[in-house]
Structures are given as C-alpha cells and as structure tokens.
C-alpha cells in the first residue's frame, strides 16, 4: 500500500516537473530533457509487463496532453516499457532470484548507467522520430536525440544518486 502511494507520488511529481519546467528547456536549440521516464526505469523488476505498459501509456499521455503532441510520448513510453525486461536482462547479467528495483545501489553505477543509457536512447529515438515524422531533417533529429539523451541521462543519474544518499 505504501509502495503504491510512493509510486503515485513519483508519477504526479515527475509529470509536473516535466510539463512545468523541463519541457521548456531547449539548450542550444536541440537538447530537451525527459526526466519523467525515470519512474519507468526504477519500478521493481518483477512488475507485470502489462501493468508496466499501461502505466507507461498513462504517463506518456499525461505529458502529451501538456505539450500538444497527441500520443507521441505515450507511444515512446509504451515501447520502452515493452523492451524493459530485456534491457534489465542484458544490463544486470548476474542472476537475481529476488525482486529488486533497478538503481545505482542494486545494479552498481556502471550497470545502471548502461541500462539508463539504452533506455533513454530507445525512448528518445522513438519520441523524436514520431514527433518530426519525416526524414527531411534527419541530421537535426539525430542531433536532438543525442544531446537530449545526454541531458536526460545526466538528470536520471543525478536524481538516482541523490535518492540513494538519503
């Protein structure tokens, strides 16, 4: 029960931070952080895949509503949620029988970094290609993917670091 409440708090908090502040960041005209995917990264490994996808859909759609992107964020998040079990498997090679929440503490800093990097790249690639929906400005889209992913990754690592310090 307590876990559910914390998750709801994370959900609301991350969506609010995303739509009120982060969406308006656009460093050098290319980099926008999408920190809200952090929740999809840290939810415990053994969560039902379908539940995770529904959660991702709800989260993406709430962000979509605030940036007039009509399903783009939702599509990218569902894709990330769908691929997540596979990501965890390749980034945390040791066989854990017990359930755990992916994070710096449980995976170690490098494994978590790899995991977050792959997740961010998958999400951002889907997001920016769906958003521009053309190959005309493919160079610019790649630039946005790379630099936004860097910014998101930095924030994800920072938030996870601070969370574990407490």
């Amino acid at each position: 029960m307590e876990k559910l409440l914390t998750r709801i708090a994370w959900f609301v908090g991350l969506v609010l931070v995303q739509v009120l502040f982060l969406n308006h960041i656009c460093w050098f005209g290319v980099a926008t952080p999408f920190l809200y995917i952090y929740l999809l990264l840290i939810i415990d490994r053994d969560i039902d895949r379908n539940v995770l996808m529904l959660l991702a859909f709800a989260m993406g759609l709430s962000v979509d509503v605030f940036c007039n992107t009509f399903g783009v964020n939702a599509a990218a998040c569902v894709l990330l949620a769908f691929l997540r079990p596979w990501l965890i498997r390749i980034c945390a090679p040791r066989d854990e029988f017990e359930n755990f929440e992916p994070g710096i503490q449980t995976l170690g800093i490098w494994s978590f970094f790899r995991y977050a990097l792959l997740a961010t790249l998958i999400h951002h690639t889907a997001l920016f290609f769906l958003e521009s929906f053309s190959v005309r400005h493919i160079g610019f889209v790649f630039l946005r993917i790379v630099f936004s992913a860097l910014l998101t990754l930095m924030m994800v690592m920072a938030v996870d670091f601070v969370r574990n310090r407490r």
Partner: protein
Amino acid sequence: MSTIFQFFYKHLHWLVFIVLEIICFVLLFSYNSYQGSIYLSTANSVTARLLSGKSRVNSYFALADDNAVLVEQNARLKERVFELEQMLSAQLQDSMANAISSEWISRAGYHVTGAKVVDNSINKTNNFITIDKGTAEGLAPDMGVIGTDGAVGVVYKCSEHYSLVLPLLNGKSNLSCKVLNSDYFGFLRWEGGDARYAILHDMPRYAVVNVGDTIVTSGHSSFFPDGIVVGRVEELHPSADGLYVTLRVALSTDFARLHHAFVLRKMDAAELAALKETLNPKKAKRK
C-alpha cells in the same frame, strides 16, 4: 482448449503492446479531424488552468520587459490614432470624428480581442500556443492572431475559455504573404529548426525583391487583413527549376518571448454595413 488459453496468456504482453501503440498512432493521426481531441490538448480546462497559474508566476519575471514593450506600443498606437483622427476629421469636416470611438481603431472590419499566452513552445516540429480566451469570448477556429510585433498564427481549436493557436512555427501552418508595396505573393512555411526564420515559397522569379524588404500578409486569406507585418527578407535562393525564388524570412515576432496576443475577428455583414455607414455619413444621407 487450455493450451490455447495458456498460449494467449503467455503472449498477452504482445497484444497489450500492439493495442497500446495502435491507440497512440490513432491519436497522432486523428487529432486533426476529431473535434473532441481538444480535450487531449493544452486547451482543456484542467491543463490550461495549471499552465496559466505557472505563466502567471513566470510573467512576474518578464514584467519589466513587457512594460517597456507595451509602453512603446502604446506610444505608436497613440501616434497612429492621432494621425487617423486627423485624416478622418479632414475628410468628414464635421463633428463626426468625435463619434469615432476606440471601438474600431482596429483595422476596419475586424474586432480585436486581447489574450494572454498561457503556454508556448518553439522547440518542436509542430508547435502550438495556448491563449486564455475561448468560445465564451467569441473566438472560433480560423481567426488570425497577431502579437505586438506582427503576425503570430491562426486559431486552431477552441474550448470555452481557452484556445489552441497554430503559430507560424508549425509544419501545418501555411500563410499567404507578399512583399510590401508590391503584389507578388508566395506562401510562408516553417521548416523546423531555428524559431526566428521561416521560408517564403513560390515567389515568381521576376518579382523585384531585395534583402531587407518587409514581408506582410497578402489579404488573400480571410484570417488576416492585408498588410500585417510578418518579417524581413534575409536571403534569396532561386528554386531548382528557375521559375521561382525562395526567400528566407526573419520573423518579426519573437516567439520565444511571446506573452500577449491579439485575436482578429472579422465582423459579420450586418456589422460591416453599420460601420461603413458611420464612416460615410454623407453618402448614407444622400441616399
């Protein structure tokens, strides 16, 4: 039978994944035609209220700049009013000029509604602007929107108290523009990237255009009256077939700092007739 169920259960996540992605794509492609989609945008009352609360906080930080701009604009408007009043009284040569109230200082035939920008983006391929006026204030889709410095865009969808504006910085925007003091016109589109520039297509090759010329609305669309400033010519590029010239236009509106917008509402026929009558009282009397 049970093996079939087992099979489905085992692969349920594929089904959920595909269904959810299909929903996303339907949203992505149908929001244009489906009027209900206004609820999935920043113009629905919950999101708009949240964002307007935030923009109210943010606007305090821009107050000094905003004031300077407004004062400057007021001064220019006053100047224009005096000029027009003078012209008018010279024309009418009677006391009619006093009756010309501020109600229609706006370009003849258009009502002007001031609105605050609640939400704005410049970093996407399809940007939108949300303003805090809606159907309750008489707004409707396809009305022109201008800022303090020039054209901004066109009203796209309205809820009761908020509207979504399709700005020039949207891939779907397509505005008919011309070079000031000439009749050559072309279409202004934004191709993504830098929010300060847009491209004017289909200008005939033989049109006399120079770098630095002012680009204004052509009046061929019903959204804008003739002659609203859009931008300045920055570069000229001949098209591949040599028939047209493409212009890179520096937009006069700074979309990154847009806080106020004015919606232009065309008067209906009856209102227009009444206005014309007050403008030409002599003609009306003679009849």
